């Protein structure tokens, strides 16, 4: 992973200290993030990006999650990639993604998309339907405001039919788009879990009870060791999924398998990590003032967004069971189509 990108991201996301009310983000900070080019990080050079690997591009999101920077970055980053991938013009500013059962049509001119990330701040929405058709909508009407635990906007919006939208194509399968969204959450989960571990270890070394740091107790050490192993699994899941990103273009099935695995693993780790982090911290960890909850709320929100563990487990099992002779090992070790 390029250390220059990480250093830049680290600098930019560390500066974000403004505490804002839930459902909003720091516009000045966002301007800085946009100016740094992060929103174009997933794009290929010919599409206006910088030719970063998916691992490098997503490492920016990992840093952002570690600092609990509440920004519409993951959505804008992927929305831009989706637009480029579908041959649609790249939008300016905050752009988001909505998944719906069907696009609006002449018969059903209005469709409501629910829990759309940061819709209230978005100039454009990339909408994907179950049939794989994908289209872009400008300034959609907000039907209802909502939020996740982490204070990120999750709004309901109304999408209205236009001549334009009736021409929408379906370059990929719906579940591939869902997996792309899930991939972003896996990256965020890994970053959040990593930061929660760091905070918990620091706290265990600092906090003195019974005359010594609580981290000297074997029970606490073992709890943190369990957490560390789940953080390692979560990080490995994120690396695995990011590395698989180019497969979107060549082998959507395998891409889905890998992201499904990653979301299952990172999702399960999220609950365990949040629970141990809070237990180690004791009462201070559940106060609004202390920053642990910013991380654990990300863990609790993102594990359920774009398919929870149960959902993706069924997807994986169905993929394996649909083999001519279902074989767990052949399924696990299937050679991915090599991508240069």
């Amino acid at each position: 992973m390029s250390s220059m990108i990480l250093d830049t991201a680290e600098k930019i996301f560390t500066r974000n200290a403004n505490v804002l009310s839930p459902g909003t983000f720091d516009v000045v900070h966002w301007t800085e993030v946009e100016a740094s080019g992060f929103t174009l990080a997933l794009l290929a050079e010919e599409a206006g990006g910088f030719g970063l690997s998916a691992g490098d591009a997503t490492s920016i999101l990992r840093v952002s999650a570690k600092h609990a920077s509440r920004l519409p970055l993951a959505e804008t980053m992927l929305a831009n990639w989706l637009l480029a991938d579908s041959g649609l013009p790249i939008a300016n500013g905050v752009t988001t993604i909505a998944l719906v059962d069907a696009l609006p049509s002449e018969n059903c001119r209005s469709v409501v998309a629910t829990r759309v990330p940061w819709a209230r701040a978005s100039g454009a929405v990339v909408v994907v339907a179950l049939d794989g058709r994908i289209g872009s909508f400008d300034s959609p009407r907000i039907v209802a405001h909502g939020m996740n635990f982490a204070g990120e906007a999750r709004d309901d919006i109304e999408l209205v039919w236009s001549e334009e939208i009736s021409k929408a194509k379906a370059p990929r399968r719906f579940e591939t788009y869902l997996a792309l969204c899930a991939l972003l959450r896996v990256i965020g989960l890994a970053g959040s879990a990593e930061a929660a571990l760091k905070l918990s270890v620091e706290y265990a070394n600092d906090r003195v009870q019974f005359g010594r740091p609580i981290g000297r107790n074997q029970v606490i050490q073992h709890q943190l060791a369990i957490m560390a192993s789940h953080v390692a699994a979560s990080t490995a899941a994120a690396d695995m999924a990011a590395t698989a990103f180019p497969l979107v273009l060549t082998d959507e099935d395998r891409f889905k398998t890998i992201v499904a695995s990653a979301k299952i693993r990172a999702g399960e780790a999220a609950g365990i990590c949040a629970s141990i982090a809070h237990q180690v911290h004791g009462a201070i960890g559940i106060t609004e003032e202390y920053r642990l909850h910013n991380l654990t709320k990300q863990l609790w929100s993102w594990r359920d967004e774009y398919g929870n563990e149960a959902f993706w487990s069924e997807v994986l099992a169905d993929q394996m069971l649909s083999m001519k002779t279902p074989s767990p090992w052949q399924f696990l070790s299937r050679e991915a189509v090599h991508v240069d």
Partner: protein
Amino acid sequence: MDSNLGSDFSNAKRAHSWLGFDAAFSRSLGKRGWVGMTLPKKYGGHERTAMERYVVMEELLAAGAPVFAHWVADRQSAPLLLHYGTEEQRLEILPRIAAGECCFCIGMSEPNSGSDLAAAQTRATRKDEGYCVNGTKLWTTNAHKAHYMTLLARTDKSDERHGGMSQFLVDMRTPGIEVRPIIDLAGEHEFNEVRFDDVLLPPTALLGNEGDGWKQVMGELAFERSGPERFLSSFALLNELVRVLSDAPDRQARQAIGRLLGHLMVLRHMSQSVAGMLQRGENPTLQATIVKDLGTIIEQEIPEIARTLVKVEGSLESADTFAATFARTLLAAPSFSLRGGTREILRGIIARGLGLR
């Protein structure tokens, strides 16, 4: 496997996993060039990369091949000899390991020294003609079949807990060694008690330097803990589960099986990255420890999940493959988080890695 073990080598037999012992099968793997793969050619090896060796190990484990006759020698004794053995020992023993003909056992644990390895009391006293060994090793897997043991023994009265220990290469035919069987809860004979009564070893038996035993053993454990056998031991039962359920899997079954696949996919990714670290000459102790801890949890979960999805009364003698495979896996499961370092020891290592100890 089909040509050596027959196409009817059932999942119940495969459930022995890497603890299945078949000397003829190990020899045939040696003939294929699949043992001692990374060793130099002048020692009978094939100068393959660690990743190539990893691929072969995974395939053997996934298939439930009986590999125990050569597994320990290939995994940790060969690298140990390559590093610390005399040229004569390397020329004599490494080609036999690469041929799949040489079985090693590991003399670490003792009656009063299990997880607390530094408490070992077996003593090797220097004499004019070499070393005289007295003491008892316990839980020594395959000692009754092994040609050699790598022995950890005390060589001086160091005050330092980890000092004063040395490693020796012991020919199991040396007079004064007595091997007594210990039968495990599944009725299997893998463990032994090994008694050393004035056993005289030649001076060349010393591996590395006197006093470096602890350091060398810790290096060896990195090999012992890092392989794919730490997450694939229950794989035969997963295969059985899929076989039994694949006709009409309900939602609960699909969720449970899919979850296991997801976890195994990530574990495999982690295990491969440990192999990559070994290949680059990095020290993967912490990463290997984490993979073993997570891997054995999944290995132990598989029989528990299997019995919630399929009605079964386990029996080793059962003609029903599922019941027999389930029984074999369930009865082996407690050992997964004991052998090669208990779960608690591993978590201590992880905690130290976090800066808590």
